[in-house]
């Protein structure tokens, strides 16, 4: 195909680009599609036409052309989303034992370093555990211990308390709450 000669061809190229881009395309991106110079106003008008071509009552009803912060993209109309989501069902994940124990140690012994956690658990800290808890905004770094390597000190956040419905760490069940006589924890 040579450089497009008419509006129909230009629109086809725009459509192909927007359907395959995998991310929104800005006006500047779209102008790069064509060797010849095009006014931004013209491009905008063509995009409006393309949008109309994909109207809900047309033959091209599955997608809609929308403008988002970084540009234009085709997206499946909302009513298809429940079906498409079935292709990538989300697993109701659970934190691993390592992550939960890391969290417990940080909650009860804070502020602690990785080294402290390792000493208590007797195994190396899984960086994923720390990352998961940080991404959840349940723990953060509150300083460095002043020893060689200056390891980071981890503590729980307010957000963690909120999510567990606690007003303060003091409301965490204290040890003696579950060290019942009959439990005879084998420490």
């Amino acid at each position, binding site marked *: 195909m040579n450089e497009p000669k008419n509006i129909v061809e230009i629109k086809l190229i725009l459509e192909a680009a927007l359907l395959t881009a995998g991310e929104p395309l800005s006006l500047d991106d779209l102008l790069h599609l064509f060797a010849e110079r095009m006014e931004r106003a013209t491009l905008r008008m063509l995009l409006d036409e393309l949008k109309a071509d994909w109207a809900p009552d047309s033959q091209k009803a599955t997608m809609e052309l929308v403008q988002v912060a970084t540009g234009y993209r085709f997206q499946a109309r909302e009513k298809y989303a429940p079906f498409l989501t079935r292709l990538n069902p*989300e697993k109701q994940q659970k934190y691993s034992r390592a992550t939960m124990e890391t969290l417990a140690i940080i909650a009860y012994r*804070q502020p602690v370093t990785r080294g402290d956690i390792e000493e208590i658990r007797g195994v190396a800290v899984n960086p994923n555990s720390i990352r998961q808890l940080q991404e959840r905004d349940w723990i953060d770094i509150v300083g460095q211990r002043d020893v060689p390597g200056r390891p980071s000190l981890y503590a729980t956040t307010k957000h963690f308390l909120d999510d567990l419905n606690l007003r303060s760490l003091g409301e965490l069940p204290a*040890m003696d709450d579950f060290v019942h006589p009959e439990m005879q924890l084998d420490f």
Partner: protein
Amino acid sequence: MQTELPQSKPSMEARIHGELLAHLPQDLYIPPDALAVYLEAFEGPLDLLLYLIRKHNLDILNIQMAELTRQYMLYVERMQAIKLELAGDYLLMSAMLIEIKSRMLLPNPADVIFEDDPRAELVRLLVEYEAIKLVAQRLDELPQVGRNILVADAHYHQISIVAPPEVSLDDLMDAWKNVLKRARHFQHHQVGRMELSVREHMSIILRKLRDALTNGESLVEFSQLFDVLNDGIPKLVVYFLAILELTREGLLRITQQAAFSPIYLQVGHSA
């Protein structure tokens, strides 16, 4: 004497069905750097041999060993002369060629290759390599995702938001119990509410110092940490205990120039 150098990598052009397209420098003088580029374009001894065969219109099935060996050695010598990093493979091939040549000198050299023709193995290698070379080029010419194939990849809204794992207080307790079960040095340790409050406030103080540091203040005045009017005595006590514990653990440094002058807190000893 000036020699015409190939326009592009010779072996790219010399490959097609014995159609010889590349120009090979016929004569001795080639600027050394140009020669290096030229010789580096070969993918190895088999590539070079194929090139020579095609260039001289030698029959791959009836190779004139003397001529091929002479040509090949010429190139290898040139490569060595310009100190091109010469793969051992090239020298190995020299040895093979010379061996074949000498075996050909034995009685009954055949025009047509048969089973025990000394050239048989070499021919097998060349034929197989040439086939691979050709097919590699064809593979490269196939349409390829990302190059000439663009796959539809429009957007759609994932309906359910990725729910983070549910964690209950019980889950946390279970985890803590497990930790304690395994950590023998917790044997006599009981974590009480008071101590937890202290530990929480240790984190709060460290966070405040961290934030102050981000604002360029390495020192925080003791009294800035809490609200004397509203916090209430228990809270102040907890703050005080937290400061003592932080100091004990070396996480905090307290300084005071003189009695009754402001007390300053800072992280560690130098930060």
